[in-house]
């Protein structure tokens, strides 16, 4: 039996935002979040009952986040668009901004692999389905991503920390 869509939102509300946030800044990530759930709501009646809703949503979120990214690249100049409500994401102190910058600096494939595995909790076989390639390649990309994060983020933290 297919649960009411509200339950799917309830269970995946943060995962989808995190996946969008790895690819986009805080404001754009919220737009991608909305686009993701609206598209998912539209397609939900056709989703097979035994499908993994989380993997399905992560796939949609990745597509929507890339759409938002492409749209931004086409209009690189800010147009003075002001968000309706000030964002609570990315406020200094509200999150670990340095980590987010380090994640944002990763090469694409590593960033996505890290996001899907460590943020969305997907197994490598499913990540391979999203990214293309083998699950070994997905595992390597995630491992390389974490290695790079250790260097750029933890390395920087160590330098900055009082001994």
């Amino acid at each position: 039996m297919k649960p009411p869509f509200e339950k799917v939102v309830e269970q995946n509300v943060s995962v989808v935002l995190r996946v969008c946030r790895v690819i986009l800044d805080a404001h754009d990530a919220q737009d991608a979040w909305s686009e993701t759930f609206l598209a998912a709501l539209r397609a939900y009646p056709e989703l097979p009952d035994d499908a993994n809703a989380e993997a399905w949503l992560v796939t949609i979120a990745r597509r929507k986040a890339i759409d938002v990214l492409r749209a931004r690249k086409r209009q690189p100049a800010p147009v003075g668009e002001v968000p309706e409500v000030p964002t609570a994401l990315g406020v200094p102190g509200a999150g670990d901004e340095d980590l987010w910058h380090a994640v944002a600096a990763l090469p694409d494939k590593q960033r996505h692999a890290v996001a899907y595995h460590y943020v969305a909790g997907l197994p490598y076989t499913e990540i391979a389905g999203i990214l293309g390639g083998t699950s070994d390649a997905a595992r390597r990309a995630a491992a390389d991503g974490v290695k790079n994060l250790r260097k750029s983020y933890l390395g920087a933290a160590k330098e900055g920390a009082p001994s």
Partner: protein
Amino acid sequence: MNISADHLASPDDTETLSRLRDRLGLAAEAAGLLDVAYTTIDSPVGPLLLAATPQGLVRVAYGVEDHDRVLDTLSQRISPRVLRAPRRLDAAARELDEYFGGRRRVFDLPLDLSLSAGFRQLVQRHLPDIGYGQTRTYGQVAELVGNPRAVRAVGTACATNPLPVVVPCHRVLRADGAVGGYIGGTDAKQALLRLEAAA
């Protein structure tokens, strides 16, 4: 120190997520994708779940019915496109509040009776003919719908009323004067009858 999901989870915050969910409800309504909108309200007979399709109010459910199960049923029988989106229920919530406050005797809301069919729906359509503060027996209602021998079927129609309170099955009693069963429990039925008798 390990890189873990906890670190990457940090930018979540409850207020942002709840605002995004509200926005989703509005966007879904605007896109015509909100097949079932619902909310819950507090009332003197406990929390009530209110659900509406674009046609109208489709379900009022007591807490004893288990709201999660009620939502599962709506998902199966109407559409899985179910979202908590209170705006569509604003009028129903206001009229119920007025009713429980003794300031409203008749509900003026578009109803969607698609959860019941045939004789049950016929009975439910006629229940609002029983005025505020009045009561009828199951037998009298059977006569009212032109089928005087269908007393038991009237009982079933009342017991399966998807819109209790708004469609007043609580005004139908047993012939011996006993209150009879009720989807929200006998206490809730008596509370509604007391409310209407006092006003």
